[in-house]
């Protein structure tokens, strides 16, 4: 394999993971972590300039370019946030230097696994990558070693493993379906070859395979009723990991699901995957929206909001068609950026106040105006109010599906409105009202948060034409 951008997407995080595991001193390693993610981002962007050749193992096409750039970008900004977050954690003694070394190595290993899952052309390789990503995040969720963190990590590990096992069974079934057509061996697991021949596969086998894949990867996407691991894992792990989980890992699992959906789409006799995805998406939206009301932990609340938004995205992709797919992609991008920005804010807020309980946080706009208003902006964005990007993508999801299935869209809108109410109810007490808790100024890095929110705001007002045409291409690919 020549040393092109594709290789460097995998090699940089891999080398960085090994190096960071060995180096002492958290100041240096935090900087190296940022540097490594920056280099990965640069090689991701270079994919648009020179497209490397795809082989039997690795693949670059219009679909995964979008995911790769989004992943590496949020990976980079999160590493910047992580540097200041970790600095504070060390100072208050919540983490020891040994754990920080471990944390940075795992962060890079996670980046490696996510990039591998995105560029894998072999469905077996993709599965392995998602499994590695799961294992690294399990370790990071349990890092604080409190009762709650251990319980969250254990739950995540068990549910994640079950999901991953079901996904493997589905992968084997896809191979079984492909074997009579393509022949034995390597070729029958290569996604591009599968796509070329999928029309001739046995539809019944493909149907069963998709059900397993939907349940398996759907667990990792956080679709209700398979979401139980998600709120705990988000609430108990270090906040940078919550940002990466919500912003990126859920997308990667969704990407795997979309690849298989494309296989089914070209087979005329197979079931349409759409209705299954629409149903699970709507259940997730309604369920998560209702759950927002009784939350007492701020990180948990935004974890439920992630379930809601993944539901909207899966709904959009399930409806299918060029416009709904476009809306789904846009919503996914906007959600990743906004949700990670919110977690950046929440991470610093929890550090300043020393608690994650909503009841103990109050009057942030008075005590920490920058953080408080940042959170307000983030919540306004995530709730889908104009003029921010999520308003636009939600509007597109609704308008593109309303003509086809008015009732389903009505349910979706109901879910979005319920969630909006829940979010603002809690936001009100957190950012306005009587100041509670310590009023110490925050030593925070605001750049990542406001960069994300700025992009979301800009996207809500004006989408550059190259971006629109790029997304449109991908939407067409998705069918």
């Amino acid at each position, binding site marked *: 394999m020549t040393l092109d951008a594709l290789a460097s997407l995998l090699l940089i995080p891999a080398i960085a993971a090994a190096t960071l595991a060995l180096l002492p001193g958290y100041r240096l390693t935090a900087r190296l972590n940022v540097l490594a993610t920056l280099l990965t981002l640069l090689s991701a962007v270079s994919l648009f300039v020179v497209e490397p050749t795809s082989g039997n193992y690795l693949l670059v096409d219009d679909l995964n370019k979008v995911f790769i750039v989004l992943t590496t970008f949020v990976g980079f900004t999160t590493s910047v946030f992580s540097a200041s977050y970790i600095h504070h954690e060390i100072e208050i003694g919540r983490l020891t230097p040994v754990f920080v070394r471990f944390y940075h190595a795992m962060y890079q290993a996670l980046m490696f696994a996510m990039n591998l899952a995105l560029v894998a052309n072999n469905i*077996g390789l993709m599965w392995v990558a998602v499994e590695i990503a799961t294992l690294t995040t399990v370790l990071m969720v349990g890092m604080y070693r409190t009762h709650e963190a251990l*319980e969250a990590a254990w739950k995540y590990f068990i549910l994640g493993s079950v999901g991953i096992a079901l996904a*493997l069974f589905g992968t084997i079934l896809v191979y079984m379906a492909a074997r009579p057509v393509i022949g034995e061996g390597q070729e029958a697991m290569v996604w591009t070859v599968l796509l070329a021949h999928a029309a001739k596969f046995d539809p019944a*086998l493909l149907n069963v395979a998709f059900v397993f894949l939907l349940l398996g990867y759907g667990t990792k996407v956080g679709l209700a009723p398979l979401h139980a691991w998600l709120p705990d894992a988000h609430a108990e792990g270090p906040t940078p990991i919550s940002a990466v989980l919500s912003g990126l890992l859920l997308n990667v699992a969704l990407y795997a699901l979309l690849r298989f959906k494309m296989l089914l789409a070209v087979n005329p006799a197979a079931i349409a995957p759409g209705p299954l995805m629409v149903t699970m998406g709507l259940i997730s939206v309604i369920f998560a929206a209702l759950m927002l009301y009784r939350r007492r932990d701020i990180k948990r609340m935004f974890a439920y909001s992630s379930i809601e938004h993944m539901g909207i995205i899966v709904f959009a992709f399930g409806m299918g068609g060029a416009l709904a797919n476009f809306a789904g992609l846009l919503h996914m991008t906007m959600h990743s950026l906004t949700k990670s920005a919110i977690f950046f804010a929440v991470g610093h807020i929890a550090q300043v106040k020393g608690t994650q309980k909503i009841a103990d946080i109050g009057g942030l706009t008075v005590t920490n105006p920058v953080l408080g208003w940042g959170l307000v902006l983030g919540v306004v964005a995530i709730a889908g109010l104009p003029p921010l990007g999520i308003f636009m993508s939600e509007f597109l999801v609704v308008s593109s599906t309303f003509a086809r299935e008015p009732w389903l869209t009505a349910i979706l809108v109901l879910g979005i409105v319920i969630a909006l109410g829940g979010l603002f109810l809690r936001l009100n007490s957190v950012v306005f009202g009587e100041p509670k808790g310590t009023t110490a100024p925050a030593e925070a890095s605001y750049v990542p948060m406001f960069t994300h929110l700025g992009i979301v705001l800009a996207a809500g007002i004006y989408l550059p034409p190259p971006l629109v045409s790029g997304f449109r291409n991908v939407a067409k690919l998705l069918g």
Partner: protein
Amino acid sequence: MNGLAFDIAHLLAGSLVLVSLMMLYQDRLYALLNVYAVHAGVLALSVAWQALIQHAPHLYLTALIALVFKAIIIPVVLHRIIVRLGIHREIETAVSVGLTMMAGIGLVALSMVVMLRVTPGADALAREDLAFALSVVLLGLLIMVTRRNAVSQVVGFMSLENGLVLAATAAKGMPLVVEISVAFSVLIAFIIIGIFLFRIRERFDSVDVQALDRFRGERR
């Protein structure tokens, strides 16, 4: 495929389901581990037989991994962990044995119905093996659901992985990459679990997952 080769493959895969069902009603940790060792041993035999009749030498490696790693090393290590933790007494099952067995039989029937119906095109052996493999996977899930003890949940998960290996070998000519990855994932999973067990021990003096439940997220 000649009759005897098919019959033996069928027998071995069927035995794997039977051993899975046996795991359902074990109420002691030691016994559960022993049955798991048998489970892995049967898997090793089954995979080796597949290697022979499919003329696929790389499958012998998978069989060897199943035999050495899953049938011998893991049970021995888990034995020692159990002794060290002092939890070698009874397992608390969440649901009664009778109900669990009924559910298990139902799951086996379900997987037969599902898999045999959708694979009329595949060869007979692959069909049967896939149906058995799905049964083992579902029974593994059932074990994980019905147990509260962390060690027995792990054993349930490992039996589930055995079902996946059976499925992967039944899918004739499936690239080696997957077999290795399955074995590898078990290894990683095991290391992690080991770490977890020790951490849980350190914090709770118990590996009963119910102890963890008390600290669930928001009930503070």
